[in-house]
């Protein structure tokens, strides 16, 4: 499987480490009143779609960037690769 890195171009997937659902980027506020139930959901609940899935990959054996990869879990076709940093910034976060 080849991942088209936004900065470095096409790289073999063996250079990457898979983390999981891109929803993991949205860590709940630990100081909120309902933090416990939010963290239970954050830690244990995942969508497991047969089809398009946004997921986090880490370019461990490359430039060590985190990527948000949109991949079809049925065909393994990758339709979009973004830097997680850019995704977070687009959501209005500082880093």
């Amino acid at each position, binding site marked *: 499987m080849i991942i088209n890195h936004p*900065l*470095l*171009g096409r*790289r*073999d997937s*063996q*250079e990457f480490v898979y983390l999981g659902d891109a929803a993991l980027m949205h860590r709940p506020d630990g100081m909120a009143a309902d933090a416990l139930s939010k963290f239970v959901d954050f830690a244990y609940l995942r969508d497991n779609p047969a089809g398009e899935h946004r997921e986090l990959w880490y370019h*461990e*054996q*490359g*430039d*060590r*960037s985190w990527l948000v990869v949109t991949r079809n879990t049925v065909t393994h076709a990758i339709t979009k690769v973004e*830097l997680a*940093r850019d995704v977070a910034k687009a959501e209005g976060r500082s*880093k």
Partner: protein
Amino acid sequence: MANSLKSLTPLGHAAAETVTVGPVTIVENVAVALASLASRRDREAEVASIAAAAGIALPGPGQATSGAVYGALWLGPEQWMVEAPFASHEDIVAILKPLFGEAASITEQTDAWVRFDLTAADLPALFERLCGFDLRRNGPGAATRTVIEHLGCYVVRRAETEVSVIGPRSSAHSLHHALITAAKSAF
């Protein structure tokens, strides 16, 4: 006792080693000092202008540059490895830190790495046995981090016939062995 305080090369000898395997020459290069340079947040433009004034050409993704004194290779977004002659820049951080001040984080890297310079007419044939970095597509000036024998290494294409492999110093012998084995296999 004086001898026991003498510094050793990454391969553990008093002098750097050179090995020739067929058409390939593998030189253990101990003449270069390294420091990593990372822009601090929102200081990127400042770092770029200080670097330009100091003669450090900071390359874009997947690239390396070399200048009169300083060379640099891209490590990640707003991060570079700066190279300079060891003879004049042994304490490279002490030289760079006053230039960049608080705009960048600079860390000594010289002693963490072993650098092998390989020269051969047909380097792509050698590196296609070692790593996933395709030298046929990446000409002089290309640089990347990739895996060689399970070791995270930087591969820098200095010229058509010269490539530097910068790998973890603690695995210097394993990396050296891998390079020699691949050279024997390729030629």
